[in-house]
């Protein structure tokens, strides 16, 4: 038996080079080719959002909430707006709800494209990486037309509704992009044998381990558990739309990829159902004006959860009288996927599988570190 603390094992770092792992690294101990122990080393993107948001007012925070996760700023925008609305107890117009859900689903699709692209890249399937990122750009063009920003919407989904109305003829543009997305999905459905052999049976996560370690979203659904906040606790207008929850049983890297692909198809369905039904009317509650002075009620607290592309995102908010918040706690799904789940999965695997397992978890170092 070798001693873990003596230098009988080789140690190396996976990351934090940006193309390899994002702003994140894993300390790995090796015995030959086998991983004996892995320790996630987060913190490269720690910006202290929870503290920053205590120093800013509601509108500044709405804009700041974009930056929590680089991959899907709109989802965090939505979560922050929902937390604020529940806190101050205001209704939002029906039109705003439709716009929000359409954007949230588009955001989910583009986030999945980044994920799948990076996943392909890590497994040596470079063409797939370029195709995924190319198709993502169609969605970014839509974001640019609607919110004004390609990646960061600068608080487009704001407390009370959305910051401005949809531009004219956007419906036909969205429909065109949905066609493109279908094209991409059908392309990825043609299984690349090299990719399949690299991912099938790799990084198997069992259902009880997934629940025990706090996995959520696609990672949890790939282990055979039917759970989605959109279904169990529907927010906005998710109770009005019909969609399936893709669930697979294997729990390996390949089934996580498959879930991602199926979810893109479901999101397309959701958007199609909503597009021709968008009601007319206000897009923001008349009481809320973006940028106007705003004071919170004293001593209220709420806890909200959303299904963002990576899994369960939550916010706890406590207010005090005045323009600033008392406390805000943000939990991103990657916090659990990239620390306990990744450490668990890497144990006993081979060096060559490290990037495959890492990228199959759909992690985002930004929402882990906050």
């Amino acid at each position: 038996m070798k001693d873990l603390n003596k230098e009988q094992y080789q140690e190396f770092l996976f990351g934090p080079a940006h193309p390899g792992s994002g702003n994140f690294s894993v300390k790995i101990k090796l015995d030959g080719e086998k991983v004996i122990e892995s320790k996630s080393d987060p913190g490269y993107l720690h910006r202290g959002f929870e503290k920053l948001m205590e120093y800013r007012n509601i509108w500044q925070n709405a804009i700041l909430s974009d930056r929590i996760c680089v991959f899907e700023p709109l989802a965090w925008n939505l979560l922050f707006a929902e937390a604020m609305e529940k806190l101050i107890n205001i209704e939002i117009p029906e039109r705003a709800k439709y716009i929000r859900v359409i954007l949230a689903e588009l955001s989910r699709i583009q986030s999945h494209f980044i994920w799948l692209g990076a996943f392909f890249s890590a497994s040596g399937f470079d063409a797939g990486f370029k195709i995924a990122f190319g198709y993502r750009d169609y969605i970014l063009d839509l974001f640019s037309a609607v919110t004004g920003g390609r990646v960061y919407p600068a608080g487009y989904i704001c407390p009370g509704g959305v910051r401005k109305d949809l531009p004219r003829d956007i419906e036909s543009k969205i429909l065109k992009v949905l066609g493109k997305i279908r094209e991409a999905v059908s392309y990825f459905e043609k299984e690349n044998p090299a990719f399949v052999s690299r991912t099938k049976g790799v990084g198997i996560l069992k259902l009880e381990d997934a629940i025990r370690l706090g996995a959520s979203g696609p990672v949890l659904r790939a282990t055979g558990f039917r759970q989605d906040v959109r279904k169990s606790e529907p927010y906005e207008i998710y109770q009005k739309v019909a969609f399936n929850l893709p669930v697979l049983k294997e729990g390996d890297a390949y089934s996580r990829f498959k879930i991602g692909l199926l979810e893109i198809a479901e999101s397309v369905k959701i958007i199609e159902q909503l597009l021709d039904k968008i009601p007319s009317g206000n897009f923001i509650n008349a009481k809320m004006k973006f940028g106007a002075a705003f004071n919170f009620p004293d001593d209220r607290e709420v806890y909200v959860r959303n299904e963002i592309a990576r899994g369960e995102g939550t916010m706890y908010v406590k207010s005090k009288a005045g323009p600033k918040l008392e406390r805000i706690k943000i939990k991103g799904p990657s916090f659990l996927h990239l620390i306990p789940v990744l450490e668990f999965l890497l144990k006993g695997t081979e060096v060559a599988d490290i990037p495959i397992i890492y990228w199959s978890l759909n992690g985002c170092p930004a929402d882990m570190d906050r």
Partner: protein
Amino acid sequence: MRNIILTLKSKFGVEILKEEKKQIWLKADKKNLLKICSLIKKNGFNFFSSLTAVDILEKNVIELIYHIWSEEKKTILNIKIKIDRERPEISSVSNVYDASQIHEREIRELFGVNFLGNPDLSSLFLEDWSGPAPFLKSFDWRNYVRKKFYSKENKRERGYFT
């Protein structure tokens, strides 16, 4: 659901603070935490969703809130526990909920709360940090940055001191 709450009430003196749609806010005592967690876990609350710490300076307490979700009951329990701010210590629930281990590690670093029985409380985000717990209300980061990194003598940095 009713039964669990009633048992918690009679056995551990848990107080119901408010009930919302799909959420119940409870207040409990520090010494009963582990027993409460094992009991609700047996009754289907097996998703450890999040752990929040709130620093309440004027009352001299740190409030810990355990957010635990049950898929079968479609309910979140938010269990509030107050601990002393001068000696922030509480027993860890990582034996019951494995996922809580990493949350406790984060709170330990950012709020300085000691979780007794947690196997790993090493620092998570901050590297070579020797200052006080940075997310406490008493920690003024502007002051800290001024002291640590800026100098009044430096012409370009003088502006930060006015």
